[in-house]
């Protein structure tokens, strides 16, 4: 009779499909996000795992402590530099490569695309092994090559002034393939008729780039900017495997400092720092949206 199942049975079917995901997701992702906020308001430490009653609510103390913690300030400055320099650098390089590959002048495009993308899919540990070796002060490949042209290369990773810039360049090297792939897709989605019409109107390539490519690419730029920024704010793996945050904390990042505090058993404090990172990620994403959305039309 009734071909349509009843309300109850439809609810059951829907939840039947969603439930395994929902349970795992609530327990291991959404739950911890909330728990982290609660923990950040307590003095929870590793010792409390055995004695949960010893936990006290301390309100916003952890957040207040952050700004009195010189290591936090150092880490915040380092992370800011990494993001402010690294994101534009990475995006500019990936856009240039994408424009080059999309120009129609390049043979073996697939080879280039795979090659530029390779670091993105490679384990950071393997990358760190190679780069630490290449960057060795005396017999490393880079300084040997610099030596050939008479430049005495520094100990890149162990000098305070060069460690962070080195990691920024490495980050750009590692991530530019991601932006390149997205930019290539964005470029190919621009209707060819626009360029054809512009050519008939006598527009030069530079004008076409300025007045067709750049405006049409804005949504793609927004996407790459948001994803790259989210990744770079969480800057952790590079300093962990390359410099251990040194020398003298010059590559200590917020995520690394959080990891260390967690390691020391200061769970409440680490959670507060994690939340600060979360808020920064959200604010920067909103900023990108504002910046790039407003200019449309």
């Amino acid at each position, binding site marked *: 009779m009734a071909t349509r199942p009843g309300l109850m049975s439809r609810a059951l079917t829907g939840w039947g499909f969603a439930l395994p995901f929902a349970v795992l*997701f609530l327990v291991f992702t959404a739950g911890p996000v909330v728990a982290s906020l609660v923990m950040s308001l307590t003095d929870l430490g590793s010792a409390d795992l055995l004695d949960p009653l010893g936990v006290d609510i301390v309100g916003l103390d952890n957040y207040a402590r952050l700004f009195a913690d010189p290591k936090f300030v150092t880490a915040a400055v380092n992370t800011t530099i990494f993001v402010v320099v690294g994101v534009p650098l990475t995006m500019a390089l990936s856009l240039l490569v994408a424009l080059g590959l999309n120009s129609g002048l390049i043979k073996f495009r697939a080879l280039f695309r795979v090659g530029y993308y390779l670091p993105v899919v490679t384990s950071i*540990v393997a990358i760190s092994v190679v780069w630490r070796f290449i960057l060795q002060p005396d017999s490393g490949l880079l300084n040997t090559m610099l030596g050939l042209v008479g430049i005495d290369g520094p100990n890149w990773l162990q000098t305070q002034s060069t460690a962070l810039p080195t990691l920024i360049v490495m980050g750009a090297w590692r991530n530019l393939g991601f932006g390149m792939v997205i930019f290539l897709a964005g470029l190919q989605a621009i209707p060819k008729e626009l360029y054809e019409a512009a050519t008939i109107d006598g527009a030069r390539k530079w004008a076409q780039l300025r007045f067709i490519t750049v405006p049409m690419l804005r949504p793609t730029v927004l996407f790459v900017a948001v994803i790259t920024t989210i990744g770079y704010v969480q800057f952790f793996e590079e300093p962990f495997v390359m410099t251990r945050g040194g020398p003298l904390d010059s590559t200590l990042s917020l995520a690394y400092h959080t990891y260390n505090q967690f390691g020391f058993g200061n769970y409440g404090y680490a959670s507060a720092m994690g939340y600060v990172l979360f808020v920064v990620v959200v604010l920067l994403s909103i900023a990108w949206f504002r910046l790039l959305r407003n200019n449309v039309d």
Partner: protein
Amino acid sequence: MTSALDTRTETLPEGPPRRRAGDDLRSRDHVARVVLHVVLGAGLVVMIGPFIWMALASFKTEGEIRADPPTFFPQNGTLDNYHTLFTRLDFPTYFTNSVVVAVVTTVGNLLFCSAAGYALAKLAFPGKRVLFLIVLGTIMVPSVVTMVPLFVLSSNLGLVNSLAGLILPFLAQAFGVFLMRQFILSIPDDLLEAARIDGASELRIYWQIVLPLCRPALATLGILTFLASWNNFLWPLVAATTEDKYTLPVALALYAIGQNQTRYDLLLAGSVIIVLPVLVVFLLLQRHFVRGIATTGLK
């Protein structure tokens, strides 16, 4: 592949007045072509050079690796580094752990995310909007935010230092369900409705109609999850506390950092072993992969 710019130059009108402009453009294109190849080629060397160098160096003796000036091709090629790695260090264990974690995580995500994605896209049930909003709300959460509670939770559930503890937190991920939902939304309702009228159960519709149609999205999700899991670093570093539970990246990183004198010969061979499966997956599936990332990115 030729782009619009290229075709356009080729098809310029051949009439006498325009001829010169065409020649001019063509020779300028020629210069641009050479310059672009040189610049992008140099970039390519910077991008993949380190990997080629790593692969070659893994066949060198430790003495040769430390030679000053460095050599490019191995003088006396040897497999000793790989041999030592697999006999002296517990590499087979790390490798197996990595494979188990990555494969189970991938299969789990394909299954759970596609099922939930189907429910969110095509079925009506109470709480659907809330569930979707929670998923969207957590998509931007940095991994250090969940690290602490996840560790506390894992230690309460007895999951610390177990392979299950490395897998469970990543079995159901926001990105995966979002991707699957978006893709399944594009499947026409009529198709599913027709199957329902024919008496097919929802399970059968999901398994025999939705999943086969989702192949491109499943391929993308599968590859991305496998790579992310294989390369995952922070959580295994935190949650695997004894050597027999290490994954390859953790083992290699702790080995590299923990030693007084870095044994680059073993590290380089270990790195090759980490990169090799990824390289194979990537080269075999790179078409899917690049297209998948591009489409997910733009949706």
